[in-house]
């Protein structure tokens, strides 16, 4: 069977890369790209880094491939939020009640930042995901520096804290765990992040949570009450408490949902339905576990893999597993952090390069005889060499040579 029409839902990194891959594979039929936003999304990583600092301007935020949409002959529909899908007759329903049918669907709806449900929306409280949110936060931080509270010491929170410090703000970072990144990485990494922030003047409060925002009579933020009852004054508060996959539109559709779209090892979720990017959860046979990854490089790579999988499915081909070795970066103060692999908090962190004091080092994460990941600080070459080695073998001795 050859597919006559494919719908891609979500026109960000994963969706655009899927479109490109379909065309590169020689598929020339009707390709519809549905995007909820009123314009194409921007490239997100600079939003917490150079864009907040004012060193990266909006013209430089274009997504890779955005300029190729016409050349790729993509039927791009903006303001097209998909609200429902029926896997049995392959129809998607848009917010404005329009319906579209297709023979294949690529789910690339990404993730959305978590908020605190019981909190009101108020001037001064921010999340960071899209350009509009970033512009508002940038404007707020361009005012005469005062006090900002960042809730959550994950990567985005930590980057916002770093940018705000560089702009001269007093920064308090609130984290419920006893070290940053406790749920995802061995504690040595969290200890490094904590030291990095404290030595750069961030007031990091661990084992601490927020209770309610404190608002002025006109609804403007003036501070926040913490779980222990104490109060912090601030003009700006940024929530960096993680993101949730955008799966709601697929509930009840017949497409399985777990912590994301529940895919098999080839990124296929249901007959004719594949998923990619932040929204896709799949079994990565290389690491022997199911994973969902909110990382830039994964969105690029999985977009192509999912697109090719859809085409191979139409040919009745069983497809190949997506065997990624994840890789991401994060810039905080003078630390350029890169990590390859998929470690867990219980893994043993072994210093394999440099020294933490020198600010240039790498940790390998050991589980039995295997290396599950390498995190490098200001040692990009180390992280990539590990990634290259891990693509072949996770054996510790192969990844971390003598």
């Amino acid at each position, binding site marked *: 069977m050859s597919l006559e029409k494919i719908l891609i839902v979500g026109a960000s990194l994963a969706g655009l890369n899927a479109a490109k891959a379909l065309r590169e594979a020689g598929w020339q039929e009707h390709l519809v790209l549905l995007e909820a936003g009123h314009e194409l999304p921007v490239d997100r990583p600079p939003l917490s880094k150079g864009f907040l600092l004012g060193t990266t301007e909006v013209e430089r935020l274009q997504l890779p491939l955005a300029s190729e949409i016409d050349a790729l002959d993509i039927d791009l529909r903006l303001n097209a939020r998909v609200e429902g899908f029926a896997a049995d007759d392959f129809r998607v329903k848009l917010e404005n009640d329009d319906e579209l049918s297709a023979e294949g669907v690529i789910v690339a709806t990404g993730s959305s930042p978590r908020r605190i449900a019981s909190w009101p929306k108020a001037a001064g409280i921010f999340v960071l995901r899209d350009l509009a949110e970033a512009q508002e936060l940038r404007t707020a931080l361009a005012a005469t520096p005062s006090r900002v509270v960042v809730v959550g010491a994950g990567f985005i929170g930590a980057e916002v804290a770093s940018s705000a410090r560089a702009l001269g703000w007093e920064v308090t970072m609130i984290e419920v765990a006893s070290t940053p990144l406790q749920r995802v990485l061995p504690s040595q990494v969290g200890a490094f992040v904590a030291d990095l922030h404290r030595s750069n003047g961030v007031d990091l409060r661990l084992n601490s949570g927020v209770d309610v925002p404190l608002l002025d009579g006109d609804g403007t933020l003036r501070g926040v009450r913490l779980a222990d009852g104490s109060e912090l004054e601030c003009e700006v508060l940024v929530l960096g408490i993680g993101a949730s996959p955008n799966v709601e539109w697929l509930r009840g559709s017949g497409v399985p949902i777990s912590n994301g779209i529940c895919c098999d090892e080839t990124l296929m979720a249901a007959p004719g339905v594949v998923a990619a990017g932040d929204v896709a959860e799949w079994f990565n046979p290389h690491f022997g576990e199911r994973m969902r990854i909110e990382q*830039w*490089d994964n969105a690029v790579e999985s977009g192509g893999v999912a697109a090719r999988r859809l085409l191979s499915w139409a040919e009745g081909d069983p497809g190949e597993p997506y065997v990624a070795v994840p890789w991401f970066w994060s810039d905080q103060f003078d630390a350029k952090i*890169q990590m390859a692999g998929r470690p867990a908090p219980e893994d043993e962190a072994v210093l394999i390069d440099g020294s933490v004091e020198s600010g240039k080092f790498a940790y390998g994460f050991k589980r039995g005889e295997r290396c599950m990941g390498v995190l490098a600080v200001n040692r990009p*070459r180390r992280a*990539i060499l590990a990634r290259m080695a891990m693509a072949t073998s996770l054996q510790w001795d192969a990844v971390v040579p003598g």
Partner: protein
Amino acid sequence: MKIVVDYDLCESNAVCMGIAPEVFEVRDDDFLYILDENPDESLREKVEESARRCPKQAITIVD
């Protein structure tokens, strides 16, 4: 095929090296070196993938 890297954009994160080590190398000094500015056609697919996966969009392939 000729490769041009915009060094004002490049952050030396070495993603390109991970994909096409025949062409790109980030050395211990943290600089990106292009080992072959006019790589053989047989490397085109890898080089194109490097360009696509460069987080800074710093790599351009001329013809």
